[in-house]
């Protein structure tokens, strides 16, 4: 059977889908590719010209790194693959400038980007507060990176899956309803003359229902279907993250095939 994706719910920042007919290894590599291999932009280098605020340069640089940047993967190269050879050029990095005086709360929208389309994804994040007489002048340089290098480059925050089980109730069932009582996730219900499965997606495979059943009439089997929950940071749309992750997986698999052929 071919692998298939069935989307359950989708919004700008969260998606829930079922990945069907795949091995646990493929499901996990998909998760890991989304988290650690899809590149995004993040501030990585900051030049401070003036900083008389209450926060140290290092703290501010770290806060800037945390801000998600709207990324256009067509526009930028990874720095180590760029024509400039990793030195830094408009093809692989972008700077954000800031020159403000207090009293003022500095928001992420106050930064002036080199490219008006590449901006901080969420514009009302407070970065710091400047008080009377304090000044901040800096240039923050963002580049592409992957989650493998630093968590700030991750395009997703939550990216997790679980196995969707298959719950089977045999004819030995005496309708004692102990399993319904025991289930912490409210998966089972009494449907007329037998126990029915109400919400299989909610099952956490805790196996409490099996422990409590004296007739051994209930079985919870693992299947090759996985329920994914993915949340975006705003750097990339979720569909792009998923597509890019699969592209990366494919190129890695092809590379592996080539290596194996060379050995033979």
């Amino acid at each position, binding site marked *: 059977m071919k692998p298939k994706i069935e989307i359950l719910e989708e919004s700008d920042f969260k998606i829930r889908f079922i990945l069907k007919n795949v091995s646990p290894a493929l499901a996990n590599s998909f998760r890991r590719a989304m988290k650690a291999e899809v590149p995004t932009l993040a501030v990585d280098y900051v030049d401070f010209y003036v900083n008389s605020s209450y926060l140290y340069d290092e703290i501010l640089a770290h806060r800037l790194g945390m801000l998600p940047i709207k990324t256009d993967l067509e526009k930028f190269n990874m720095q180590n693959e760029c024509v400039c050879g990793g030195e830094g050029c408009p093809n692989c990095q972008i700077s954000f400038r800031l020159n403000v005086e207090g009293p003022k*709360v500095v928001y992420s929208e106050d930064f002036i980007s080199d490219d008006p389309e590449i901006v901080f994804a969420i514009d009302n*994040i407070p970065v710091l507060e400047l008080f009377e007489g304090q000044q901040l002048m800096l240039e923050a340089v963002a580049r592409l990176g992957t989650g493998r290098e630093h968590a700030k480059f991750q395009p997703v925050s939550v990216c997790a899956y679980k196995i969707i089980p298959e719950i089977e109730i045999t004819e030995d069932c005496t309708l004692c309803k102990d399993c319904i009582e025991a289930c912490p996730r409210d998966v089972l219900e009494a449907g007329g003359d037998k126990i029915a499965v109400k919400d299989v997606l909610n099952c956490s495979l805790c196996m409490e229902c099996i422990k409590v059943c004296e007739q051994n009439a209930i079985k919870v089997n693992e299947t090759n279907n996985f329920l994914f929950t993915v949340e975006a940071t705003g750097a990339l749309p979720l569909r792009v993250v998923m597509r890019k992750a699969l592209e990366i997986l494919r190129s890695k698999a092809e590379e592996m095939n080539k290596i194996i052929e060379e050995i033979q």
Partner: protein
Amino acid sequence: MDVPREESASDFPIRCFSCGSVIGHLYEEYQKKLKEGKSSKEALDELGIERYCCRRMFITHKSVLKELSRFHGAVG
């Protein structure tokens, strides 16, 4: 007890420490809801903060910047 506190949003963490979800832009809204008389639970539910890792970021925030600013101008 839920006592709404006046806390500065300007040094609230941008990301949740544990899961990395972006929460920096929600703290001002959270405070507004507390001021309206809502409990922390109601406010966080309305903002869509589900996990307890992110929820503790809101309810345990104490602004260092605000403390320091009390002495602004007193020294150099």
